């Protein structure tokens, strides 16, 4: 019964969307705002990767909101999983030496890889979110491989809030220094395709990288607790 009702409902939705999608031809050049970004993006933001310039400059406010959403998820997760009873220290079986050494060897390499990705976010594909996710996966590896090693919760929290504050302070500096606009790109744009270019974009992307990395690492840490 439930299946039939849902399928009928889905069919109606599908029909409606199909009617609408007919008017959006696939693969045709039709963009209006997008063209502006492609044509003017390099002069206005100084980033070679136009997606980065859209994410951090034209639509930077969305990104601020998005970082906040992840922050809420981390906070909400620890609020939901917070237990009133005291934590019991469980005896953890240590992992084998090969695994342990391998993880210790790989951990800094993965961190470097993540950092590379978000430092070069304005030049190549990738950026704060991807780099942050890679950093978080390094922590996931240590949780799985070197059991018993934990990052201190406090350090995660401090990184999280400091990097969030960097984002907001850079934005407010734009309001104060570079004319009346929040998130204004007030630093010099530099030469296209060089590492130190695009004004505030690399700074914000590094902050986002740290924030996303610490938040997802914190989420994994909370979920792994007492499991």
């Amino acid at each position, binding site marked *: 019964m439930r299946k039939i009702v849902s399928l009928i409902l889905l069919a109606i939705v599908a029909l409606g969307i199909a009617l609408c999608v007919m008017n959006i031809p696939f693969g045709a050049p039709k963009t209006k705002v997008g063209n502006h970004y492609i044509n003017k993006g390099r002069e206005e933001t100084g980033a070679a990767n136009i997606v980065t310039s859209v994410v951090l400059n034209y639509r930077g406010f969305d990104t601020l909101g998005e970082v906040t959403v992840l922050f809420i998820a981390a906070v909400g997760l620890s609020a939901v999983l917070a237990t009133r009873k005291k934590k019991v220290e469980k005896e953890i079986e240590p992992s084998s030496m090969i695994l342990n050494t391998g993880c210790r060897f790989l951990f800094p390499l993965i961190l470097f890889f993540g950092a590379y990705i978000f430092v070069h976010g304005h030049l190549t594909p990738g950026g704060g979110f991807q780099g942050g996710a890679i950093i978080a996966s390094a922590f996931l590896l240590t949780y799985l491989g070197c059991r018993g090693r934990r990052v201190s919760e406090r350090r995660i929290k401090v990184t999280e809030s400091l990097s969030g504050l960097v984002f907001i302070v850079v934005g407010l500096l734009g309001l104060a220094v570079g004319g*009346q*606009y929040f998130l204004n790109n007030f630093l010099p744009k530099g030469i296209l395709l060089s590492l130190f270019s695009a004004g505030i974009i690399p700074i914000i992307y590094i902050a986002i990288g740290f924030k996303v990395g610490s938040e997802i690492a914190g989420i994994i840490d909370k979920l792994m607790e007492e499991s």
Partner: protein
Amino acid sequence: MVNPVLLIVVPLGLSFAVPLFGLISKRIEKYVPITALIFNLFVSALLIPKVIQGPIIVFIGGFRPPFGINLVAGPVGILFSALIALVGLLVSIYALDYIREGATQLYHMLYLLLLTGATGVVLTGDIFNLFVFFEILCISSYALVAYLGNRAGIESAVKYLIQGAIGSSLMLIGIGLLYGLFGTLNMADIARNIDSVSSISIFVPLVLLITGLGVEAAIFPLNAWLPDAHSSAPSSVSAILSGIAIKVGLYAVVRVIFTIFGVSSILQFLVFLGLVTLLIGEVSAFSQNNIKRLLAYSSIGQIGLIVFALGMGISHGVVGGLFQLISHALSKALLFLAVGYMIYRSGSMDISKLEGMGKRMPLTSLAFTIGAFSLVGLPPFIGFPSKFLIIRAALSKHELLYTVLVAFVLLGTVIEGAYFFRVVQVLYFKGNPTDLQREEAPVQALIPIFILIVLIVMVGVYPKPMTAILNSASSELLNRIEYIRSVLG
């Protein structure tokens, strides 16, 4: 001049900084929401006289719309942000004492972030940005509903989360279709070009957006989550969810219908939807024995009344609807705050367990009575002028249909009066009054309750100062040409 972007950025920054404050001292963190909301209230109050003359358009990053994100601090936006800051501030004072269990630091962060999301939704002028802030609002309310971590709380949070997630997915599909059709995400720019495509392809994103936003706004077929979520959350959270969160959802629905799509053909449908929501809410509230569920269903009824008023699509109706929205926010916040300590003292949400509260907690019971009377629409409280405006607007249409509809609205009010009088009767006239000593709520709870009572009575007696802002707000909502012109220049 104060930049309206500070209304969003300052609370956001402060809530990011809460863990750092926590390192200094555990006592600071619960004053952070109060500080941020005082700031917001102050800035909003400062901006009100300016925005009545004309909306302030803020370009984020210095890019002119439609190329950058912009905020539209018009009369509607600032009215809502002032309301959010006011109710939020009072409830956060209440929470100083009320929230003791669990991870209190996390509660205060989530609480502030919820209100920041709500402020973002009402100020933004970009449809995807609205989606992002809407997600901030929704996700923090899922977490806050589950805050107590008991069976009921977790169960209703799960229910709320599933329905909310489906809603936001539908909304995102709608936004994608709009972008595909118009190549822009700015609400004013979409509104300007809305007539350039065929009406069927407009209709689909409209339905998707309204369905997605309607989940949070609790319009009739989409409100299954509301009674559970509002009744199992901590009372301070229920006050915010009932007072602010559903109103913000409703704002988004109205903005989408009035400003972006500018469709008058579905307004009639909206009026009927509002009436159905009203009657279902009131009838279900009548049969409740749980005091918080009763208040939650009464919220559904009131939302129905507001939708009814806004759906009339005439200036008087919109003024009445917005007034009713403010009056419901204040009165329902007062009711939930009063009920919070009653439940705490009696240890049960059962209405029959509240016997003798008139003697045990006289001030709180008085507050409950005032809130209830105000919701029913008795003078001299704020509910009277707002309901009066709505009914006058409906009658001014001079159509037989609306006269019949008004009769139904009055029927809803009668039902509402019946169940509220039943509760008030239990509070004062039931039970054995001899063996009870007074256990009044603590002073941190009485201060916001007292301020709410003063506001409710003051605006109820003298509603004149509200009319200027309400009139310009309603003309902003109804005059989309002016909105498009002021954003795009």
